[in-house]
């Protein structure tokens, strides 16, 4: 198991390098230069000075190498448009809010979605199954901005129960955004777990467990649950991608000063280093999540441990 984890950890390094390279090359294609964008003519010397300062006069591979060095020394460089602010500062200020929002959404999606799927599977073709799956089908299809709008309109504006926007200032601010963001993943987990639970309950080893005279509670909790979690764990990584996408939308609706909202601004103002920094950071989060998923997978299914160490 340790060897497996070390191998997976090492594998993340080339992945990160490639992701940085791709983002880097893409960013170079964006038309425009932050120092040449303004209508007001900047003297040529100043322009050249700035470009030298930010290594924009160097060939691309030198810039890339410098950037990679920066990433590994945890220095993402200065912002190109905001004076005296480094990308690190910007991330430090905005990222924790997005992370908190994402985690809250993810936690509630799992905490509700998985039991929902299990209950629906155990009560297959009953009223419970049908109503839970109805909720799940709708929750999976409705865009999060509709949920957010409805929540703000009815809960905040009409009933005046919770604040309409913002983030800092207590739990009241976090309920609606986290709920809206987590609804679709919750529905997704419920569907997935229901399907895999039903499939697991058909397996021969479940029949063996019943033949041992085990109580149904134990058959489900020990024999069925663990095996049916495997697809759910596999699905966690793509779900995280969805949640990252979702934070962009939710942050805008609820005016949360998170990293997603900042990213959109940075792209339009051609702030290369900020865009790069945020992209690399989110990639890192995704790669890290994939690593965690693989390890969890190894814990849940002993066969993969042998196969891959």
């Amino acid at each position, binding site marked *: 198991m340790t060897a497996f984890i070390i191998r997976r950890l090492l594998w993340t390094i080339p992945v990160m390098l490639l992701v940085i390279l791709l983002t880097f090359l893409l960013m170079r294609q964006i038309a425009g230069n932050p120092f040449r964008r303004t209508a007001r003519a900047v003297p040529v010397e100043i322009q050249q000075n700035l470009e030298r300062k930010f290594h924009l006069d160097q060939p691309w591979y030198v810039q890339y190498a410098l950037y990679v060095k920066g990433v590994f020394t945890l220095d993402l460089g200065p912002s190109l448009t905001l004076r005296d602010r480094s990308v690190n500062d910007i991330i430090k200020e905005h990222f924790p809010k997005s992370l908190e929002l994402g985690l809250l959404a993810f936690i509630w999606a799992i905490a509700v979605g998985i039991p929902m799927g299990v209950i629906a599977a155990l009560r297959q073709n009953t009223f419970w199954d049908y109503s839970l799956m109805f909720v799940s089908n709708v929750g999976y299809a409705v865009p999060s901005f509709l949920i957010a709008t409805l929540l703000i309109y009815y809960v905040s504006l009409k009933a005046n129960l919770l604040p309409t926007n913002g983030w800092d200032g207590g739990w009241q601010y976090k309920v609606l955004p986290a709920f809206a963001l987590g609804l679709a993943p919750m529905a997704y987990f419920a569907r997935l777990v229901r399907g895999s639970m039903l*499939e697991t309950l058909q397996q021969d080893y479940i029949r063996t467990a019943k033949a041992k005279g085990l109580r149904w509670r134990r058959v489900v909790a020990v024999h069925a649950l663990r095996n049916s979690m495997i697809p759910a764990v596999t699905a966690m990584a793509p779900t995280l991608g969805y949640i990252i996408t979702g934070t962009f939308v939710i942050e805008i609706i609820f005016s949360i000063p998170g990293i997603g909202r900042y990213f959109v601004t940075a792209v339009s103002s051609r702030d290369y280093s900020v865009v790069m920094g945020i992209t690399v950071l989110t990639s890192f989060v995704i790669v890290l999540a994939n690593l965690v998923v693989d390890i969890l997978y190894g814990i849940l299914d002993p066969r993969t441990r042998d196969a891959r160490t």
Partner: protein
Amino acid sequence: MSVPANPRDAVATPGGTTAVGDLAAPPSAGEAMRRSSLWRDAWRRYMQNKGAVFFGGLFLAFTLFCIIWPFVSPYDIENDPVNFQEAWQGPSLKHPLGTDQLGKDLLTKVALGGRISIAIGIGATLAILLIGVVYGSISGFAGGRLDNIMMRFLDALYGLPYLPFAIIVLAIIGTNNIWTMVLALSIASWFTAARIVRGQIITLKENDYVRAAKAVGARWYRILSRHLLPNTLGVLIIAIFLELPGVILGEAFLSFIGLGISPPDASLGSMAQEGRSVYRVHPNAIIIPSIAIAMLVISANFIADGMRDALDPRTRETKEH
């Protein structure tokens, strides 16, 4: 990341049902005769699934509505004069969904927006499949070292965050029209399709009739085009409807944060974005286009589920009890 294929064995059908007689043959080999009856069986199974039939009909009906209604509608969104007296009306006989801030008919606007959303959705899905088929079949067919390198590259791409990636692509292109939206959406989400195609090609490659074709000296492109790709069709059709909801939602998200296609054209997502500034007073401005999006997404989900069950009878057996 390498997500291992689920190693568990096939579902065992409990005792009695197997006694009834042969179950429908799984979609295995490429005998032409059996293939036609396979599709007929799949069609029959699909039609038995009430949810899938209902939502399939809904999808079709909504698409037809979007195509036809703007021609039939008494309103011309672009050329009708602005009429503030009729702004923000509720539903009525004259305007079944009410009117917008300029007094224009929302039903007609939804049809126009739906057209663009569906066009972008289908366009991007086809693009995803095209890239996926090319990449996946090269990788799967070549095998060996090239396959390994291509798959590792794909693993790395999985580390790319979808939306930031799409946003950067849009920023590179600079203009936002239907084609750039299709490009941005497909370039960031073809990885899964490529994996599916590769897996299918690798399985099929081991079939006897492919080996036989090789043995008689068939050229690689002939094997690929005559024997391998036609047999991935079933999987690809399912994949279309599996990808479609994600792409439609992706487009809606991009539009909603202001990166959608440029006015005067508007997709359902950009309609919702227009409503962002007024939804506190007129929530319908967001709710109506969003419900249309939800309808498309939920229909595509049910169609995909129905197709998967129809083309893979094994999964259906477990559901019957």
